[in-house]
Every structure is written in C-alpha cells, then in structure tokens.
C-alpha cells in the first residue's frame, strides 16, 4: 500500500488560555490521497480551521503526528520540511486580509517564484505570472499585473490568492472557507476554477467550510468529515452524508439548513435538539460532547463514555453510541487507556481506507 499524501494520526491541539487549555482539536485522524478532495464541515468552534492549519504545517499539534508521504513532518530535516511546505498551500477566507496591501499582484506572485528559483530573470517572471493569472481565470492577465489588492474585487483577490498558492506547484491546497466571503454569483465561478485546477493540475483539496452546499458541489466525488467541538463525528462519502446522514449532529444540521426552495424548506420540521446552545470550548461536556443537545441521548452512556469513530458499513464512520449500536450491534466504546488508542484497530493507520468509494 502506498502512503497517503497527508495523514493526521490522533492529532490534538490545545491552546493555552487563562483558565486552563482550550482543546480546539481533539484526537482527529484523517488521511488524504494525492489529488483527493476532502471536505471538513463544521460550525464555528468545531476546530476545522485549526485542523487545516495543522495539515498545512502552520501549527504544530500538541499531540499526535502529521505525516507527509509517511514521514512525520515535525521530525523531518530542513530540506524535506521545506519540500513539504511547498507541497501544501493554503487559501484563506477573507479576500481583504489575505493579500498584502502594499504589494502589486506581480510582486505577490513573482516573489515566491524568484525565491524558489522557478523563474530566471524578470521577463520569465512576467511570463509565468501571466500564465498563472490566466490559470485562475483573471483575464486579460496583463491588466492585473500591476494592480494593488485594493483595486480588485473580492472575487478577483481570491483568485490572486489561489494563483499565489499555485506558484510553488502544490499537491494539496487547504482552502479555508475560500469561497464564503464572495457574492453568490461569483462563488460558483470561483468553485469552477478550483474544480478545474483539481481536474487539470491534479491538485488535491482539503476544503474547509461551514456550508454543506459548497461541500456538496465541490466534493460530490470526495468525502466529508463533519466536525463538532474539535472531534470528527461523521466521515462519509459526500452523497451518503447529504442524503443519509447518520450522526444526530449531522442529521440536525441537514434538517436545519434553509433551502432555496420555499416548499421544501417550509416542510422542514422544528429542531429536535434538547438545547440550542453550543457548549463553550472551555467546558466541553464529558462523554460524547454532543450529548447535552442530542435527541438520542441515553443517560449513563452518552454522558459518561466517549464514542469513537467506528465504521457502520464499508464506507462510513460515525462517532455515536446509539447509531453504532443500531447499525452494528456494538457500542462505540472508548478505549480504556491512552496506550490502547494506538492499538485500536478501528482508528489505526488504515483509516484512510474507510469512507472511500469502493472502487
């Protein structure tokens, strides 16, 4: 078996806070093959952005390992780490904050090219920058060359950000809410551009979003991981997740999403949650962190034992005691000791195989 491009193995991230630590990411294991699309869906505080930064090597997790082609990135020598750095790029959410206001588009794109010796001389730099601008559908590229970010629209800036990520020929782009701050009429064409990069350049994506519609349209052939309070609660191929959600949280999300269709959306019933309020990250509930809101809550089980992410069929993983019991007849019991975690067959190194289309 070849190594996945990126694998997170039991990764946790605790930020120091005045009153103890904030566990932004809690024991997350994910893996991504080259050219694959994985969507990380969650609401604010779910830890999806932190997970993205960990994948991009911008944050060092407090525990767990991040492996790039099988090698732990935080144990790599300098040269390998640099190669990994360039292989994984990030595109941010806010088009107004992601470009340095004092540089022209040309400077923004030419600097990484020159730094890494990918172009020689100014003429070649100009030529390559023009190519990149065309790749991200900024046409005619000449007219954008010496523009400052503030002279561009939000959508155009986002395209410059994407072009900047492409300068170093990445294998994976972490797109953190990359389309959520642009207008709907622009959003689709931005998504189309990204999709084309995936198809033509073979770039993989870790697509981080709170918007299931974007997950659906961008990752229909990929997988979605739903995060809640730092944990992955469901991991499944996109069509299955959208049309047959398993975890009660995913179900609630899909039942709650307003649809752009009056009849469909007004048929959606009232929320079946026990509580509307999201717990603070400083006081994550014991057991299953969703239990204070969960309609399937079982006292003595959900508030005591933490459910593991277990397979419920050949494609899907769910972290819920009740669903797991109904689907498989066993309780998704958390391993007793920390040593036990790594030996747990369910979330070992083979995790990447779960949830994929059986092809």
């Amino acid at each position, binding site marked *: 078996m070849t190594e996945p491009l990126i694998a997170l193995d039991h990764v946790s991230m605790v930020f120091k806070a005045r009153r103890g630590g904030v566990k932004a990411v809690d024991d997350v294991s994910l893996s991504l093959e080259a050219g694959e699309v994985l969507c990380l869906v969650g*609401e*604010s505080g779910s830890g999806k952005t932190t997970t993205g930064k960990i994948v991009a090597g911008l944050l060092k997790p407090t525990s767990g390992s991040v492996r790039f082609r099988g090698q732990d990135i935080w144990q790599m020598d300098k040269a390998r780490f640099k190669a990994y750095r360039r292989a994984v790029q990030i595109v941010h959410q806010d088009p107004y904050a992601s470009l340095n206001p004092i540089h022209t588009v040309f400077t923004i794109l030419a600097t990484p090219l020159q730094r890494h010796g990918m172009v020689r001389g100014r003429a070649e730099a100009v030529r390559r920058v023009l190519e990149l601008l065309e790749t991200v559908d900024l046409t005619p590229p000449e007219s954008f060359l010496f523009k400052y970010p503030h002279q561009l*629209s939000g*959508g*155009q800036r986002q395209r410059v950000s994407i072009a900047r990520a492409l300068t170093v020929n990445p294998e994976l782009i972490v797109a953190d809410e990359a389309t959520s701050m642009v*207008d*709907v*009429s*622009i*959003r*689709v*064409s931005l*998504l*189309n551009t990204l999709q084309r990069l995936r198809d033509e350049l073979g770039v993989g994506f870790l697509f981080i979003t*709170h918007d*299931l*519609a974007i997950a*659906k*349209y961008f990752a*229909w052939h990929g997988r979605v991981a739903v995060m809640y309070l730092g944990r992955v609660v469901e991991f499944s191929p996109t*069509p*299955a997740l*959208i*049309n*047959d959600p398993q975890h009660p949280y995913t179900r*609630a*999300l*899909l039942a*709650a*999403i*307003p*649809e*752009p*269709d*009056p*009849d*469909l*959306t*007004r048929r*959606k019933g*009232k*929320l079946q*949650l026990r509580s*509307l*309020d*999201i717990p603070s990250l400083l006081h994550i509930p014991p057991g299953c962190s969703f239990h204070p809101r969960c309609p399937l809550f079982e006292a003595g089980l959900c508030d005591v034992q933490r459910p593991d992410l277990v397979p419920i069929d050949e494609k899907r993983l769910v972290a819920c005691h009740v669903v797991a019991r109904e689907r498989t007849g066993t309780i998704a019991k958390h391993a007793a000791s920390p040593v036990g975690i790594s030996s747990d067959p369910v979330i070992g190194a083979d995790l990447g195989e779960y949830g994929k289309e059986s092809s």
Partner: protein
Amino acid sequence: MAAWQRSSASNGTPAPVLSVRNLEVRYFTRAGTVQAVRDVSFDLHAGESIALIGESGCGKTTLGLALLRLLPKGARIVDGEIRYRRRNGQVIDVLQLDQEEIRRFRWQECAMVFQGALNALNPVLRVWDQMLDTARAHAALSRDEVRERSERLLRMVQLEPERVLNAYPHELSGGMRQRVMIAMSLLLDPQIIIYDEPTTALDILTQRAIIEVLRSLRDQLDFSMLFISHDLPLAAELADRVATMYAGKIIEVGDVREIFYNPRHPYTLGLIKAVPPIVGELYDISSIPGTPPNLIEPPSGCSFHPRCPYARERCAREVPPLYEVGSLHTSACHYWQEVKLERQVVETGD
C-alpha cells in the same frame, strides 16, 4: 396557515402600511455620485413579509436605511415618496417628518435590526437597562410597563427573561443576542420591522432557531417584515413576497413561490441557479458571468445587460419597465417570456 398563504388575503386590502414611490438615493463621494437606489417603488401590506434580495452593493441596505431616514453622511434622498399608514388609518409622509417626529417614528412605528446586530448591544449595560433605555428614548412608558413587555417578548423568542435581563451581552451567545435584538425591536409594538441580514454569521442550528422564532412571532403578533438579505434560502423560508434588487433597482417582484419556481428575470434566475438545494440530487449550478456594476456610472438601458445571456441590442438602449408577467408578478426584462428556470440533475444520490 402557512405564512405565505396569507399574502393573498393581505393583497386584497387596498391601503398598504408602507408605500414607496420612485425613491432615489445618492451618495456624494469624491469619486463621483453613487446612484445607490434608483427609482424604487413598492408596497408593504399589513402582516406581510417581503424579502429584498440582492448581492453586496446592490443598494438594499441603503434602501432600508432610507426608509427610516437613517442614511449616513454624504447620502441623500433626492427624489421620491415614502408614505406610512398609522394603525388609526392616518397616512403620513415620512420624508416630511421633523427630527422629533422621525425619532418617534423609528422603533414605535418602524423598527430596524441592523446587520451585525450581534455587536449592537452596549457591552457595559445589562440587557434590562438597554431595554429600558430604548423604550424611554422613543416612547413614554413606565418602568413596570417596559418590564412586563420585555418579559413577554423574551419568552416569545424562547429566552428566559429573568436570566437574560440581568445578563451582560458577553454572557449571551450569538444566537441569544440576536433574539434579544429581535425582542427589543418589538418592544414598542411597531407595525413594521426591517431586518438587515438577520441570520448572517450565525451557525446553522442557530439560524434555524431564529427562523422558528420569527415565524412564531408573526403568528402571534401583528406586524409586517421587510428582510434585507443576500441569502436566498432565508427568503424562501420567511418571505411572502420577494423583491430582487440589482444595481440600485428593484428588477423583479413576486410571490415567493413565483420567484423561486418561475423567475422571469435573468438575474433572479442566475441567483437561483447559483444556489441549488442541499438535500437531494446533484443539480447543475452555474454562475453569473462578469462583475457587479459600478453604481457611479451604471450601464445604459437595462443595468444587467452586460452580464445577461438573454441580452440583445435593445437591452443596452432601452430601460425595461416592470412588466406584468403573472399574477402579482412583475419583471424588468424586455425578454421575460424567454426566461425560464430549468434544473438539470447531474447525478443522483447513489
């Protein structure tokens, strides 16, 4: 009875609560005059809910502010009429009110909850103090009356009055603050409430809760709503009628089902095709080509023509009027007959 079915009944009543005619708002900036709202006319009937949808910079927020005469410095209503009918039937001209009258008009007759309402609460005052201040600033009410009303309204928005009234804003979650703002907007029993992006920046489950609250409020109380949003699903949820704005103009108005299932303006159609349903099959999605218009020099003729797939030579020349395209459905497109929503299923669920 579902909310949108009520619209037909309210359409029967002859006199609207709010009647806007040929409203023109301009921003005078160094770069030039921005034509933010152009020739906007619409009626809002009693108990009705209208969604004003459009993308950033289309003039929808400016329109909302103009209705309350809350425009920022540098912006002016240069033409048009805003008529408001009081509960006693008296019709007033909002543009003629003096400073004192307009202050009472806001909140008492017409309240507005702004975008970013999450930060609209004063962080150093308890919710109760802010309720009291708001009530006292706009109407003569006793302390007990304000207390009684606040408690009733907070219960209506699914909050515990005792806990929330004594809380500082930072002790409440985003969704709770938003519900406090909604309760506050209803404090003086206004006939109209304008909500600017009421669910933006809220999590999905919180959004759903807000939507449910607004629905139940409309069932229990008697007021009209004007929503300003870029969010089509929200309009689908809450509106009786939908008005699409583009480049400062209202370009299509109709019953919510008409607009979503039978749009007759290429821009509305484009928006709907850009935002497909989540549950169900994979439909084709498409974007609107081009970039949003410059409102200092809006395109000639139909402002949408440079981005419109249906555009012909006539569109650049002639400004389209709002054509009657169906029952209570108007569209500002010369070729509205050709505009038709067709959705293609790209792939099914399995």
